[in-house]
């Protein structure tokens, strides 16, 4: 399983970015290989509208089945995520990515539907 995190940095000890559409990075953990890979999403800073749709595209390209984030996506992003089949979990805003992974693994995060 590949799990994507919205993060403020590129390593597992980075803090989560609570935002989905305007997250600084997407960090994807591959449970099979134990490897992290990241995608720099900071170019959305200059995007006036549709940031979440652009971020969702990057998320799909990275092939994650699960998304862990903070606040929960807004309207457009929510409908994209729902229809794409990516399971979304929220409430990991204040954590590091590692902690967020543990919280998700132990079922402590709320499913966003």
């Amino acid at each position: 399983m590949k799990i994507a995190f919205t993060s403020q940095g590129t390593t597992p000890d980075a803090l989560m970015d609570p935002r989905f559409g305007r997250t600084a990075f997407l960090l994807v953990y591959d449970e099979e290989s134990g490897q992290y890979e990241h995608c720099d999403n900071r170019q959305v800073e200059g995007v006036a509208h549709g940031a979440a749709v652009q971020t969702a595209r990057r998320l799909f390209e990275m092939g994650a089945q699960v998304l862990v984030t903070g606040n929960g996506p807004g309207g457009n992003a929510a409908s994209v995520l729902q229809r794409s089949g990516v399971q979304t979990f929220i409430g990991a805003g204040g954590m590091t990515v590692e902690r967020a992974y543990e919280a998700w693994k132990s079922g402590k995060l709320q499913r966003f539907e």
Partner: protein
Amino acid sequence: MRVAIASGKGGTGKTTVSVNLADLLAQHRPVVLADLDVEEPNSGLFIQAGTVHQEAVHRMVPSWEADQCTFCGVCQEVCQFNALIETGSEVMVFRELCHSCYACSELCPVEALPMTPMKIGDLSHRRTGALDLVQGCLDIGQEQAVPLIARTLDYLGERFSRDTLILCDAPPGTACPMIEAVKDADFVLLVTEPTPFGLHDLKLAVETVRGLGRPCAVVINRHGLGNADVEAYCRQEGIPVAARLPHSREAARCYARGERIHPHVPEVAAQLEMVAEFIQRIEQEGAA
């Protein structure tokens, strides 16, 4: 002649000036008042008039045809507004993000994104005496004012000759809707208030109007409030101040009741007369 009545800051009195000036001018000559502040068109609240024309306004957006699509990704690649996304099993179109540029539709190799009309608002044309009121009104939930403003301007062009005096009540700010309303005006009246906020936003509006190569003058509303910095700025920049509408409680009362101000507040009427004369001078200079 087309005169846009604009401002940087909201709430400075664009509609007050537009409505009262149009009403005053219409006592002597035909005038068109066009409310281009389509997100909140208020001019019509002050004018009772009979309907001449009404139409629904649409803009074109892509609609996805599942049977044709090969999920090649071209559409989401070419869209500059993130209005399309492939989710794996479908292409989702966010119509409110679409700018109707046709790129996805034209570049789709299998014609799976035909453009279809989406209603965005209404245009209405009403008349009372020598005053015509043309107004665009954006539907609730629509985010893009520009296509409706453009259609309203087109309608004005179809319906009235270029020498008809048209006063355009423009949207506030200096973003795309304001630019659309101002870019083809022969003259721009910038309504401001003599406060630091008013001045700050006036400077932005002046830069915008100059960037568009439009001549402008300033109308100071609620004169007597704030300070003299707006006057100093206009002097320094060589921008004429066409009139100074006094800060008047009675004027505010009239506005709140939905009444025209000039019949009740002579000090305001006198200043509006000055604006009317100013416009007529420009008209004559343009004709000469």
